[in-house]
């Protein structure tokens, strides 16, 4: 890519790809922006003309808006904490030489292959059902009153379900990171008098920092938009309405495309704020 000629040739050849990407991104984005400024009610007259900032104002001033932002952040944060913590522990466990390692690893990864709708249904009906769920039986076995998980502890339940799905992903990435740790470093620390706990905090955890960063960033992207789990379990009731779910309700249940689009723009802004904070907090771990 040194000469003038090869540079312009490169630009020419990259142009179609760049163009395609731009169209791919810009068309939906500009359509969302366009609709967010229209009064668009598909079943009640269709496109009823320019709305100015009405949709934006209505979306933000609705009593569901701020709670939904909070719910989104709580679910994302909760799942991140649970998956990273248990992911690190599981990765360390799986790194130990043990009998049947291959089978155990596959079992640990399995939840990742279960579709969100299915896993949410399984959790809802088999584990969390207040009369027939396994948890209810367990509680009764110990003489306690069964909890109706999805109504009384709706957010923790959702965090649990989503964490169960994402734990394999975190474990897998953290396991490969742990395996790349030079065993001589651990031995050196052992000779230097570090207890197993000190070795974990001074050697293993810093070594994992980059992998943890990647897990946090990637999971955040996907967790901001979880939907199926909420739809299947609580349908947004009991304070589990995330921003994504609120937008869904505005567009499909209220049949208000304009309002939903304004919500979509807020969701983009929220995602960017979260991304900005994350990059500030953990981004430096990615520098070599």
């Amino acid at each position, binding site marked *: 890519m040194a000469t003038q000629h090869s540079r312009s040739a490169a630009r020419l050849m990259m142009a179609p790809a760049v163009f395609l990407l731009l169209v791919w991104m810009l068309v939906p984005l500009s359509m969302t922006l366009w609709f967010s400024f229209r009064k668009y009610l598909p079943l009640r007259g269709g496109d009823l003309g320019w709305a100015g900032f009405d949709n934006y104002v209505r979306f933000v001033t609705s009593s569901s808006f701020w709670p939904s932002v909070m719910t989104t952040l709580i679910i994302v944060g909760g799942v991140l904490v649970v998956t990273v913590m248990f992911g690190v522990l599981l990765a360390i466990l799986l790194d130990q030489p043990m009998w049947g390692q291959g089978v155990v690893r596959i079992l640990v990864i399995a939840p990742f292959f279960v579709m969100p709708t299915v896993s949410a249904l399984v959790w809802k009906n088999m584990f969390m059902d207040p009369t027939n769920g396994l948890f209810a039986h367990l509680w009764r076995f110990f003489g306690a009153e069964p909890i109706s998980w999805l109504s009384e502890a709706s957010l923790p339940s959702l965090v649990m379900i989503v964490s169960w799905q994402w734990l394999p992903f975190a474990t897998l990435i953290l396991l490969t990171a742990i395996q790349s740790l030079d065993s001589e470093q651990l031995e050196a620390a052992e*000779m*230097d008098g570090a207890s197993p706990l000190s070795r974990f905090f001074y050697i293993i955890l810093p*070594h994992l920092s980059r992998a943890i960063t990647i897990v946090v960033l990637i999971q955040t992207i996907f967790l901001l938009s979880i939907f199926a789990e909420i739809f299947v379990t609580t349908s947004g009731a009991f304070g589990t309405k995330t921003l994504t779910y609120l937008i869904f309700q505005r567009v499909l249940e209220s049949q208000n495309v304009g309002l939903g689009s304004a919500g979509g723009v807020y969701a983009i802004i929220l995602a960017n704020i979260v991304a900005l904070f994350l990059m500030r907090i953990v981004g430096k771990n990615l520098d070599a």
Partner: protein
Amino acid sequence: MGRIQLKQVKKSFGDVTVIPPLDLTIEDGEFTVFVGPSGCGKSTLLRLIAGLEDTSDGVIEIDGKDATSLPPAKRSLAMVFQSYALYPHMTVRKNIAFPMKMAGVDKAEQDRRIEAAAKALNLADYLDRRPGQLSGGQRQRVAIGRAIVREPAAFLFDEPLSNLDAALRVGMRMEISELHKKLDTTMIYVTHDQVEAMTMADKIVVLQAGVIEQVGSPLELYRTPRNKFVAGFIGSPKMNFLEGPEAAKHDAHTIGIRPEHVEVSTTEGLWQGKVGVAEHLGSDTFIHVHGVPGCDPMTVRVGGEIPVHHGDTIFLNPNLEHLHRFDAEGLRIQ
């Protein structure tokens, strides 16, 4: 204090015995080198002493106390690893401070020892860098610094110079030797390079397949190797071995003569051969001579220039004072 004694120490991995029962004493303040070909169990032996591997049998005593089942940290030994094993996310200062931090040494004392180590090892300018920003030689020094500040009873080195280039290796060799003179602490040094062993050791332990072939000072091993293996391993280039009628003349199964103990003549001598490859080192020239009965090729050393060419016939006169004789088992005949 750092007197280390191994009594009938044995190590097996599963069914494979890497080190058959072995006795060895390392005196306080001694610079001992374990030398032997790759895979002979040098590292394993060192790790047994360090406590990073469990012994399968036998007793390890440090300063007269049984240390066989002590954890590594309690043995007051410091180890320098082949990969240096520096902690990549800590600065040089934190790396060096780590063992003291773990031992609960107070801050002022930590700083004092770090300053002293940094000065001794020329690291003062690098204390705030990370290992990734240092050259190989500097990393090596940090690893040594981390070992020094613990003020251990003995230092263990596992092939510490094998990742350095040749010039740096010679320099670090000197530095480690000087360090030993200065600290006067027991050091055990593992290498496969007999030159390192010869130049640094007070005492060399030659190992082969986990068995100690000979223990002695460098010159003892050079002058009176106990068997053919040691004779061939110590000295560079290798000793020449002759079998057959030539050896029989000296009542031996095999005779050995070092390249530096053969005189070369263009006119007359005991053995006759044709000149093959010549290696010119400047001060010396090593000539590979073909056609000497019972030994092909024979390597001989001549000082500086000699007017011979590839294919010339030359004559060789071994210095019989320096002839080594071995029996059919390869043991030295006195």
